[in-house]
């Protein structure tokens, strides 16, 4: 068969063709490589996976992420600037709202910094109550995470269990401080009030509920094959890179870095008195982050039980002048908050309010690894990774 046998291609009649139509003609021609463009997908600022108003612009090839660009600042409330116009006792109200899930843990480092500048030491009972409430807020935050992670992977039920079980902890915090989310309970030199009658026994029973809840989450979520398939070896953070990006807290411990400010940092609260284990996981993937938080919830419950046993009696407030003036100086205080390392750099010029406060919040640094972490994953994995990093928008934007 010679080449002349092939019927000739009919010549296109010479007519004016819309250039847009020509583009389609080129696509339809045989042998032309179809040019598939990348798609830009805007996840957020209103998207269920972003816990608020984080916006992630992802460039997609099909379902695969080519590039991801997190855009923050939709919730910026200017807290660092606002602190310059408030007195020290007023500032706790503001910093309650940074990481709103564990407000109490936010107050602690700031108050500790002010106390250090003033040279005041809170009495031991006050320190114990602070530590207990910090750990309770950690449990509350993590219980919500344990449920929410299930929701983001597609299981609706664990989310409700998470909210339900957190409610017990919030009741305890409300019982002691009067506020469910924003206790505003710390004072310079101690705490506002002593624990109410019967609170200690109730906390003991509630800790049993926490252990039960953790068992449920271990069975229902972590033990599920589909959950493992969705999270194992997804979103791996290498330890060195994580540390270089400033990732901290459970996220870094899930990468195998044995670093916990409660044990390794400058000593604060009553952690040196306590016997606790720092949980790490070698994998560094989404599953490891879930697992580490699950174990840390249990560990926190054990710590609370331990503290209830060791709780000293005595006053809850040190002697503090009526009008608080902090002497000139600078101090850096950092603590291990539920979301990671939280720090305040306070500069005082001897007035009733600080001259400048720099807030180091954990989520800001945790999210900064996202462009690296999300590249090459699927859209479905983006959600899993975001959920497993566990950030709070208020903690990113402040």
């Amino acid at each position, binding site marked *: 068969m010679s080449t002349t046998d092939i019927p000739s291609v009919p010549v296109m009649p010479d007519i004016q063709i819309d250039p847009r139509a020509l583009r389609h003609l080129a696509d339809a021609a045989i042998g032309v490589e179809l040019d598939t463009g990348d798609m830009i997908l805007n996840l957020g600022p209103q998207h269920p996976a972003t816990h608020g108003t984080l916006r992630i612009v992802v460039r997609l090839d099909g379902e695969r992420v080519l590039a991801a660009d997190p855009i923050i600042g939709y919730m910026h409330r200017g807290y660092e600037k606002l602190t310059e116009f408030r007195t020290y006792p007023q500032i706790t109200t503001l910093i309650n709202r940074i990481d709103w899930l564990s407000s109490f843990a936010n107050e602690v480092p700031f108050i500790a910094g002010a106390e250090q500048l003033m040279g005041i030491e809170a009495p031991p009972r006050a320190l114990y109550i602070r530590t207990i409430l910090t750990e309770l807020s950690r449990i509350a935050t993590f219980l919500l995470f344990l449920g929410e992670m299930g929701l983001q992977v*597609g299981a609706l039920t664990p989310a409700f269990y998470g909210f339900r079980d957190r409610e017990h902890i919030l009741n305890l915090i409300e019982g002691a401080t009067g506020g469910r989310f924003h206790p505003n309970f710390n004072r310079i030199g101690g705490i506002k009030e002593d624990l109410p009658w019967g609170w200690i026994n109730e906390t003991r029973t509630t800790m049993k509920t926490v252990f039960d809840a953790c068992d449920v989450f271990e069975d229902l979520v972590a033990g599920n094959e589909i959950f493992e*398939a969705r999270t194992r070896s997804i979103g791996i953070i290498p330890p060195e890179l994580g540390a270089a990006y400033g990732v901290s807290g459970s996220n870094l411990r899930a990468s195998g870095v044995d670093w916990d400010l409660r044990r390794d940092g400058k000593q604060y609260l009553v952690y040196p008195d306590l016997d606790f284990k720092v949980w790490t996981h070698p994998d560094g993937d989404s599953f490891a982050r879930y697992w580490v938080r699950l174990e840390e919830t249990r560990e926190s419950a054990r710590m609370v039980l331990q503290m209830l046993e060791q709780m000293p009696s005595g006053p809850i407030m040190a002697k503090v002048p009526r009008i608080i003036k902090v002497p000139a100086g600078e101090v850096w205080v950092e603590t291990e908050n539920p979301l990671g390392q939280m720090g305040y750099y306070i500069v005082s010029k001897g007035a009733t309010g600080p001259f400048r406060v720099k807030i180091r919040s954990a989520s800001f640094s945790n999210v900064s690894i996202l462009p690296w972490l999300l590249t090459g994953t699927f859209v*479905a994995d983006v959600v899993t990774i975001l959920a497993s990093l566990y950030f709070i928008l208020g903690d990113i934007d402040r």
Partner: protein
Amino acid sequence: MIGATNALLAIDVGWGTTLALKTLIILMIVPLTALILGYVFLLKMMSHMQSRLGPMDPGGFHGWFQLVGDGIKFIQKEDIMPGEADRRVFALAPVVVVVSTFLVFVVIPAGPDLVVKNLDVGVFYALAVSSLSVIGVLMAGWASANKFSLIGALRAAAQLIAYELPLLLAVVGVVIQAGTMSLQGIVLAQHNGEIFGWSGIGFPFIITQFIGFGLFLVASQAELTQTPFDMPVAESELVAGYMVEYTGFRFLFFFIGEFGTAFAFAAIAATLFLGGWTLPGIDNIGVMRLLGPGVLFIKIMFVAFLMFWVRFTYPRLREDQLQSLAWKVLIPLGLLNILATATLKVAF
């Protein structure tokens, strides 16, 4: 008594009246079944499993008013159409989804005579028209002019292609055993069959076709885009997938379509594997005319319970994991099942 009901049910009416009645029943059945499933499983069972208090409250006893309130809410809502949308396709898409559900009910027998059309290729027809809904889904996703919708619709299409095959393979075993593709014929074959000479409970095909039953449930879960396979709607990723731009009444159409199709698939499963409208030991046709629909309904609710139980418990698979599950596990399993069934059919 039985004679009287027989006489009552055997009234001869003209074909026009019959057609009108049948049309009315079919038109009623989809919204009605969607409401029943929505009420029993989505509101009541889910509330119990997830310890939700909201759906237990409205109206007093067990929150009976919740569904009515939801319906009122949907009808009140503003009908929004995106500016960029392809208006006619956008409006047509929910209708296509619901119509495919209507068409399935045409061949499902609910009694000795209570079937709209007893087709010789009933099984084939039911599975074929049930997959029409994906056209509606694709239309919705494309016409919405929204990227989330588009991703959802394409996921739905890919999923349907992958899971139509295991669904058919699961059914082939039943067809081989029954020797017919007519749904009524399959029901009667189960009722009149016997297990090694013992005809106590007939021969529901689930006894031999348990692999087929499992395959059918998994595949129908994927067809219905229910939870282990709900990537097309994936709430946490795509917000609501192809439905993201739909509001109010149009959204209600999708909702009715979803639950109506769930009911239809449960009905097919109950008919193929659990003996349909027949009760073991009752051969009297008159009695079954009365009891048949009720018996079928109970069996359907059992199958639907299994479907929704899974829906409320499992997380979601990823798109590639779904495909590999279909092509590497379900389809080989279905083929093996057919091979075994055919071999045994020839051997016995």
